[in-house]
């Protein structure tokens, strides 16, 4: 079991040294995953709320699909985006393949259904309570969505954090569309995968520990800022 003590020593060492290679990788991870989650949330929150509050034929099907899309395998998402962004693909001229932007897009696709499905569930409950009031005062769909998202903001945090968890921990999609290129598209998870394939398990685990520490820091920050004041649900 010296791999474990080894891992903690490696993690401590990397952190204390403020290893510049590590810093580069950590910052890119954060940049990519936070961008992806914010981008996904901007669209998934209103969509989830919309589906929750609007009865339309086939809604049940849409909900099931939204839930099922949480099962999208990262590798498949990576492949599809790879093929779209590939030079010979329909979006090849954008030259986005093997760039952080491509990684953001891929993670965004993965995270979108998670945030949308969890938002739908959360808003559904709130809407059940607010529905008659909102219709009574003649709120339009956009006003309803705004009201529900605002009043549910504290509890929607958990949905967004679930999305962030998926993004920051994910390796299958970013390694395909990013290429894990040193100094360019290498993030924490792809580094961990690389160290694992090298057989350097101590380093892989050490990086894993750092990733979890970073996740704890992000979660603390988000919960403290977002869940603060009069909307504490944590």
């Amino acid at each position: 079991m010296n791999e474990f003590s080894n891992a903690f020593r490696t993690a401590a060492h990397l952190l204390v040294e403020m290893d510049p290679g590590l810093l580069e990788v950590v910052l890119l991870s954060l940049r990519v995953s936070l961008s992806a989650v914010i981008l996904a949330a901007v669209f998934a929150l209103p969509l989830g709320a919309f589906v929750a509050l609007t009865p339309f034929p086939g809604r049940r099907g849409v909900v099931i699909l939204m839930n099922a899309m949480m099962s999208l395998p990262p590798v498949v998402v990576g492949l599809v985006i790879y093929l779209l962004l590939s030079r010979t693909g329909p979006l090849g001229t954008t030259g986005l393949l093997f760039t952080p932007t491509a990684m953001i897009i891929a993670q965004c696709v993965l995270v979108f259904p998670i945030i949308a499905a969890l938002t739908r569930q959360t808003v559904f409950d709130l809407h059940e309570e607010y529905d008659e009031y909102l219709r009574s005062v003649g709120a339009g769909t956009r006003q309803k969505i705004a009201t529900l998202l605002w009043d549910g903001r504290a509890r929607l945090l958990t949905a967004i954090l679930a999305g962030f968890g998926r993004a920051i921990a994910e390796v299958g999609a970013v390694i395909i569309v990013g290429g894990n290129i040193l100094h360019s598209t290498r993030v924490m998870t792809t580094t961990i995968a690389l160290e694992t394939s090298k057989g350097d398990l101590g380093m892989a685990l050490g990086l894993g520990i750092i990733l979890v520490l970073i996740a704890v820091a992000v979660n603390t920050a988000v919960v403290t800022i977002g869940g603060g004041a009069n909307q504490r649900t944590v």
Partner: protein
Amino acid sequence: MQSQHHMLPLVVNGVSYVANGKAIIEDVSFTIHDAGLTILLGPNGAGKSSLLKLCHGLWPLSSGSIRWGDADVQDVKQKQAMVFQRPVLLRRSAAENVDHVLKLRGASSAERARVIEESLQWAGLANIADMPARKLSGGEQQSLTIARAWALNPEVLLLDEPTANLDPAATRRVEDLIRSFAEAGKKVIMATHNIAQARRLADEVLFLNHGRLLEQAPAEQFMSGPSDPLAGRFIAGELVE
């Protein structure tokens, strides 16, 4: 009361409402010509709240039709305000709850500030304007929902047991509001169990039981002796089956 009111008459024609296979409102027809206060009376579960909501256009009719003046029931919500039996309050402060409806109606920010202050003042809630609305006491919550409806300055006010949780003074204040509303030529429809209150305020009474309309009568006539025998037992406080 004359029917200068442009949303009158309210014509309810053969209305039924079925939920979960149960007929909650069954073949109800009536017409309300005059402004002033119409009271819905009837025992628990008679269908008063349901009928109010149908008249407000909140639920789809299973059959029949409802028209307010020239307009379909679906198109008049903006000119009405409804106070629900169980207060629905947003997870915001008392003042923000009033602000919410004003914003929806597109009021300017100066206008909003003025109306918020006025309405909370009226409801005796000025000192708790910044409290989370859902932490308020039962009576304060009910007052707040009435103040919120008042802030909309509607043509038609639909009230569902609005004084159930109010103390005598607040009840009087609400009754005064209803009276001044009715006197200003607007329309109020209110469900209540409080027979004394009905007696004090009503211009007209609709008596419901088991989802059916059993009697529509001018208040004085109804109170002095309803033609429906059930209604008679009801106002005497007896068990109505």
